[in-house]
Structure formats: C-alpha cells, structure tokens
C-alpha cells in the first residue's frame, strides 16, 4: 500500500462514525488487551463490527461457557484480566456459571454482554435477559452502560475493579443502541477512575505485623498455610523465602498449590478434605497457624469446631470480610499477601526451638504417605498422574475439572512452579478444565499444558476441541476414564450403602474417534505399557493430543475427612 492509499484509509477511518462500539474496542486496546474470548450474536453485532475494523485477537469458542472458562485459565496463568464477549439473552446466561466460578476463585475478568436496545429493555424483547439482576450476586461489580458518554469511564473502572484488591469478575452490559450511539466528544476518552467507595487496603498495618511477629517468636509449633492470595499477589517466592528463613513447615489449600514447590522438604502437602494426613494433623497440632491468602473454606477446615483447636491464628487477607468469617482470629491483617510477606521478612525474629515439631512432622510424613494398591489388570488414576509428573518433570501447567481426578491431581502432580495450577476450587465446575487449558496455553504458548479431566466433565465442554483443530494449540487432554461420575459414586459407596444412583455411565462415545473427528491425534490406553508409551510420545511434542486412559472404576480418593468430621478424623489412612 502506498503512502497516499494509507492516508486515505486513515481518513476514511476517522470519518467513520465514532460510536459506542468503536469506543469500546479502543478502550480495550488502551487497556492492553491481547486476546478476547467470545461468541457473537444479534445484540453484539456492532461490537463485532468494530472489532473487525480495529482488530484484537479473538478466540471464537463453540459455546459461551467455553469462552469464559478459557478466559479464566488465561487470567489465572497470565496474571492479566481475562476479557469475554457474549451476546444478550442466552449468550449472557451461558456465561453465568463461569462468572460465578471466577467470583468464587477470585479470577479477574471483564465480561461484556450485549443487551437489547434501551428503548425495549423490560418488554421481554427477543433475546432479552436481565443480566444485571442475574449477575448482581455473582460479580464483584456490574454495569449497564446507559449512554456512550459513560463508556470510557465504565470500561476503565471495570478493569480497575476486576484486577485490584481481591480480584473478581465485572460485567459490563451494553445495550445495542448505546453500541451504535455516536460519541461526540472523543477528547473525553481519557478519564480518571473515580470510585470513592472502593479503596482496597494493600499495605499491612505495622502494629498488626508486629503482633504476628511476636506470636511467631513465642510459637513452639508454628505452621504456615498458603492460599491462592499469595499467587494473585505474585508472592510465592517470598512465601518460600519466609518459610525457609525460619524453618516453618508449610501446608497449602487446593488453590494454593504452587505457592511452594511440590518437592520442597518443608512442604507437608495440601490440607483439607482429601489432603495429606500429615498436613491435616499439623493443623490439628500446631500452636500457631499463619494463614496467608486463604479463606478457611469448608473443604479445608472440616468441622469448624474441631479446626486447629490448639492454635492461635494469624490471618492475612486482602479482603477484610474474610477475616473472622469462619475462624476466630487473634491477629487479623488486611493486606496484599506479597506486601505482608515483605513486611514480615523485614522484621528480625528470634524463634523458639522448633526442631522437635519439625522432626515429628517429617517422621509423620514418612509414616503416613499417600497410598494406593496397585492392580495388575487396571491402570490406577494415581499411577497415571505419577507418570504425567515424571514425563513433564513437574514443569507443566495443569488444569482440572472437579471431582476424583481433581483430588488425585492435587495429591500426585507435584507442581514445581507457581501460577501453573488452574482448577475450579470454590464453585467446583465440571467442564471447566479443558477450556481453561486452552486459555492457559494461549497465555503461555511455550509451556506444556496438560488438562486432566474425567470422562463425564470432559463431555460438558468437549466441543472446544474445535479450537485445537483450528489453531493446533498443543494442549494435552488426558481423560481419566472410569466410566462413572467418580466422586458421586464414591460418596454413594461410602455414605449411601453402594446405591449407585445415576453415577455409572454405561454408554460412552469412542473418544479416539471423537479426537479424529476434530483431526486431533487420539489414543486409548488400557495397559501400563501403553500408557507409558503414549505419554512419552505425546506429552512432550508440540501437537495437541487426546488420551483416553481407562482406569479402575471403583478406585476411591483417600485419605478423606468425611463431611461433618474434623481434620484429625481422617478415614482411609494407612501407616507405612
């Protein structure tokens, strides 16, 4: 193109009506958005038209739920805000599960939904849904843009709210007429964020830090609990440094996996319902529990009355509402986890002699490791995960759905790195893991991304195989196929006298043919040898792959804290 043509095009662009949609896409460019996950439809036609003229990479998933889970995976791994566009009505309601998931696990998202024109809102118009009303309890905040003049400010605020403080999803609902409304004063694009009601505290109160340090200096059995807040704050290095400096043992929550390397000698494992025996007993026995960035969720605590009965509690969280919500706390500290760790590390602290405590825990870890009984006939899911760990050397980004495979992955895939673990913790969403893996791969194209899924959850969002077909994202999908809703079946076995109501799946698709239909290399493995061979061949190359691993159906996740029990009352514990 010669200079003149270029100038003409530039001119043409300027003469185009600068409308709400153009403002929206410009604002996304301004925010540095590099990828949008979405699905077009009637009410967002103007927005997609603006995107066509002023492109940002757009990933067209095959269902809106796939788009939002992919955005969550992208956000979790990249640390950036995930951006989603869906149309009004069904497009918007299909996003609801993902929005809730992001709210529960504090994932920063900005979700744009189309809306029918302001003139017909409230008339039950075609593809109208009250998405503001629907998403009010499941968003950090939501907006409906009433006029194009508000668009620049709202988008700026949305990104600010989503990414600061405790991260979370923000919905921006754009009526079609606002998307088409001409913006008369483009000079007012540069707006300041003005949110008098939103000023998150990030710096810890120094008196509270001193109190925490004092408790640490008195503790004979201290314990650190690492939560996802550390990862959101980018504080994993400091967390490990702090633990090492004072030789304090560490446990994590499910979402806190990766705050400390899986093979670290001070790491006792994940705590909670399917946590390591030693991790749970450490919580039970410790005299000081320092929780950094975890929210004392019920799957971690078990029976609250029996939780950490001997411990004083220091709780550091960016969200003041989490402090004292479930567990009475001696020293609550509102702060960004990284800043709190910096403050703690800046103090000189003389610890008590904790060697007996540390030795006792090390011995307990040796005496009560995770266990499973091998089977000549069947592959055990635990073995599959150990093999995945060996071959990827713990370096992969791992995503999961919810259920048995998720717990086994948490137990057996020792992650080396922070921000490499993408799982649906709070909401427990089936169908999350596979699209989340696509988002994670887009965020980190050079990393190996392994999506561990169950045969049932995978079928909830399997349509996104189209993206692997189209873009050859080298995502490794490993189906731990037990022909069952494994966790449901396990609970029915243990608590409902083996009445397997609707949890055994008799008929399944041929997953190899399914992979082939999308032109993706696909394998079925039934034996240990086949599994090893296929994993070695496919997990390290740069092609996508779908592997149907047939595992033992009746295998259970152990150890376990039964619902209503305390952490010290685990079942399925074996002494080595």
């Amino acid at each position, binding site marked *: 193109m010669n200079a003149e043509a270029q100038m003409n095009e530039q001119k043409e662009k300027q003469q185009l009506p600068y409308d709400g949609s153009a403002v929206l896409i410009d604002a996304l460019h301004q925010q540095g958005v590099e990828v949008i996950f979405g699905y077009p439809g009637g009410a967002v036609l103007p927005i997609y038209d603006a995107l066509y003229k002023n492109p940002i990479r757009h990933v067209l998933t095959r269902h809106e739920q796939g788009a939002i889970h992919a955005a969550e995976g992208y956000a979790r791994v990249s640390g950036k805000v995930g951006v989603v566009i869906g149309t009004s009505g069904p497009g918007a309601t299909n996003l609801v599960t993902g929005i809730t998931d992001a709210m529960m696990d504090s994932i920063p998202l900005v979700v744009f939904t189309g809306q029918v024109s302001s003139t017909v809102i409230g008339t039950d118009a075609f593809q109208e849904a009250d998405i*503001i*009303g629907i998403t*009010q*309890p499941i968003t*950090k*905040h939501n907006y*409906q843009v*009433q006029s194009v003049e508000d668009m620049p400010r709202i988008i700026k605020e949305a990104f600010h*709210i989503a990414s600061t403080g405790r991260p979370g999803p923000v919905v921006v609902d754009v009526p079609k007429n606002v998307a088409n409304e001409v913006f008369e004063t483009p000079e007012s694009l540069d707006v300041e964020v003005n*949110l*008098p*009601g*939103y000023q998150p505290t990030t710096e810890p109160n120094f008196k509270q830090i001193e109190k925490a340090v004092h408790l640490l200096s008195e503790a004979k059995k201290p314990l650190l609990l690492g939560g996802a807040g550390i990862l959101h704050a980018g504080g994993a290095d400091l967390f490990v440094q702090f633990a090492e400096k004072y030789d304090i043992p560490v446990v994590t929550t499910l979402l806190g996996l990766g705050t400390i390397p899986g093979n670290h000698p001070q790491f006792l494992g994940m705590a909670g319902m399917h946590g390591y025996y030693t991790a749970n007993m450490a919580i039970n026995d410790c005299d000081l529990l320092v929780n950094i960035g975890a929210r004392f969720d019920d799957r971690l605590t078990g029976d609250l009355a029996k939780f950490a009965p001997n411990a004083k509690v220091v709780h550091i969280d960016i*969200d*003041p*509402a989490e402090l*004292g*919500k479930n567990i009475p706390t001696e020293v609550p500290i509102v702060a960004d986890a990284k800043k709190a760790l910096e403050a703690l590390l800046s103090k000189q602290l003389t610890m008590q002699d904790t060697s007996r405590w540390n030795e006792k825990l090390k011995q307990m870890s040796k005496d009560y490791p995770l266990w499973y009984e091998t089977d000549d006939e069947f592959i055990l899911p635990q073995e599959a995960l150990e093999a995945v760990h060996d071959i990827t050397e713990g370096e992969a980004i791992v995503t999961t759905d919810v259920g048995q495979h998720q717990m086994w992955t948490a137990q057996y895939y020792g992650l080396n790195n922070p921000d490499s673990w993408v799982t649906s913790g709070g909401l427990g969403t089936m169908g999350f893991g596979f699209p989340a893996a696509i988002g994670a791969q887009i965020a980190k194209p050079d990393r190996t991304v392994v999506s561990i899924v169950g045969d049932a959850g995978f079928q909830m969002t399997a349509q996104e195989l189209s993206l692997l077909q189209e873009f050859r994202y080298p995502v490794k999908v490993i189906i731990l196929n037990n022909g069952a809703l494994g966790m449901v079946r396990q609970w029915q076995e243990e608590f409902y006298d083996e009445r397997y109501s609707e949890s055994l799946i008799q008929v399944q698709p041929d997953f190899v043919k399914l992979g082939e239909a999308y032109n993706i290399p696909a394998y079925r493995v039934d034996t240990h040898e086949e599994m090893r061979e296929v994993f070695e061949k496919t997990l390290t190359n740069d092609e996508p792959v779908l592997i149907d691993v047939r595992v033992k159906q009746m295998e259970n996740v152990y150890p376990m804290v039964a619902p209503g029990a305390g952490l010290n009352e685990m079942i399925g514990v074996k002494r080595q």
Partner: protein
Amino acid sequence: MKRVITVTVLNQSGVLNRVTGLLMKRQFNIESITVGANEKQGMAKMTFIVNVEDERKIEQLVKQLQKQIDVLKVKDITEQEIVMRELAFVTVVAPPHLRSEINSIVDPFRATIVDSSKNVVTYQVTGEPSKIEAFINLVQPYGIKELTRTGATAFVRDMQKKATPQLSLLQ
C-alpha cells in the same frame, strides 16, 4: 438481637437491589428499610433494621456491605445515642358515634387526622417504632381498615455519652 444499620451509597440505579440482594444472599432478615437522599448531591442514605444472632454475624454484614463498590459508609449505630422515627398512616373504622371516643384515646400520641369520611378516619402518627406499635394496638379493637408504615429512619446525635468506667460498670 435487633441492629440499626445506616448505609451511605452512591445514588445509582440498582444500588438498592444490590444491597438488599446481598442481605438476602447472606441470609440476613430485614425488618425494615428506608432510603432517601442525604446532604450530598448524588448520594443516598439507607437505614435498616435487621435481626441477627450474634456479634460475628453483624460484623460480617457490615464488612460485606462495605465491600460493595457503590457503598461509601456503613455504620452500626445501635449502641449510639440515636433518634429513630417512623411514620404510619392508620385508617380506623370510626362511625360518627365512636369518633370522639377514638379521638380522645389517641390524643396522647399526637396523631393528626389526615383524611376522614363517613365511616373511617385516617391518622398520621410518627415516633419510634414501638410508639407506632402501641398506637396500632390501641385502635385495633375499633377495626383497622388500612395500615401503611414507612419503616424507621434514624440519625446519630451530635452529643454522645462519654464512655466512663462507671458507665461501663452499669452496662
């Protein structure tokens, strides 16, 4: 226990929905709620009375409200020196031969008659919610045709009791 909470919010569409939705989601029982403009442009103040079981729940409520982006200030004013008022319209069945009797017994409440017709009289009464309750109980036997209450609003007095050792002993 009953708590009186005031919430200062940005007066934007949906904010009332957001606050009441939050209370519903967290399982708080609202006894009454009033909303209106306050002294600052673009803001509004809500006063609500909630029933909660313990201190921890009320702390949660205040913190969860504070977290809302459109909420500027949350105060639990139950323990403070406050003035609380509610207004009610009570339409009482009052045939002519009973009217002076009713008027005389409601007199101590300083209720005003805002409407009357052949068989009914509508009183406007203001005061603490307990006073409204008492008024209602008093006219109940004559028959209440219609009742409309605004819900309580409250403000904190400028002069507060000083916390002294003696006072805390009494409490």
